């Protein structure tokens, strides 16, 4: 899938239940609300959209708002339940209790690429919104 911000357009607030404060990072590249982000190698306190490229990336959390390249971005981290996009849901392989991983375009996937570690656990069964499935995830 590709990232389609219309899937999350109706979710004015990405955070479903907040557990801890969001972190303040600098965006490397444009980041959209609801995208899973990871640390930028060789940078200081910068995040970028998760990727499945070689080397992988370990998700820090989910962006709570849009940010342009080099702008500040708030990232909901471990302890929060957020709305986010995922590769599959409904009849797919993501449902409550399933661990998910940060994947290309900043979506969650039940399959770990490049041995990345668990980013979140699904707390419901994602539903198809426009072109992607959206569900609630507990960030860990």
């Amino acid at each position, binding site marked *: 899938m590709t990232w389609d911000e219309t899937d999350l357009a109706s979710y004015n607030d990405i955070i479903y239940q907040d*557990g*801890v*404060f969001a*972190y*303040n990072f600098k965006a490397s590249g444009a980041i959209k609300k609801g995208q899973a982000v*990871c*640390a*930028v*190698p*060789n*940078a*200081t*306190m*910068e995040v970028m959209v998760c990727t499945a490229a070689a080397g*992988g*990336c*370990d998700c*820090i959390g989910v962006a709570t708002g849009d940010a342009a390249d080099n702008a500040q971005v708030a990232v909901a*981290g*471990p*302890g929060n339940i957020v709305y986010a996009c995922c590769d599959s849901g409904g009849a797919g392989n993501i449902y409550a209790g399933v*661990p998910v*991983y940060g994947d290309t375009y900043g979506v969650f996937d039940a399959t*770990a690429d*490049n*041995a*990345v*570690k*668990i*980013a979140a656990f699904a707390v419901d069964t994602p539903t198809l919104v426009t072109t992607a499935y959206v569900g609630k995830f507990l960030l*860990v």
Partner: protein
Amino acid sequence: MTWTAPATETIPHQLGIKAYNMKASGTIERGQAVALAPNMDSYVYVPNTSSQILFGIADYGAYHNSGVAVWGMGNIVYACISSASSVAGSWLGLTAEGVLSEDVFWPSSALLLENSATAYNFKRILLCDLHGAGAG
């Protein structure tokens, strides 16, 4: 190595949740990474061997049996990194002397948020936990 005290920066950088109120088993220095002391009630200690499970980073120094505040998962704090070549995004585990190292792959429970270009320097990390239970 011997423990090197942090510079002037405070230990917490961006806080997510409150620090835990624990007791020190043995002497703990400000900024040291600590683990839960086995068979003790709410005690933390600085292991002298690698691969203990990281519990958090001490906010200040404490003597044996005294209280100590420990920043735990969900917080971004400064911690001592052993390597002079660790890259932002690397996973870190607890080694001896309260130092974190990416050479300790299990259990890894902190994520490096900036490059460490000098050995045993203090760098910002995100304390997290359940990641360690996953793949990789």
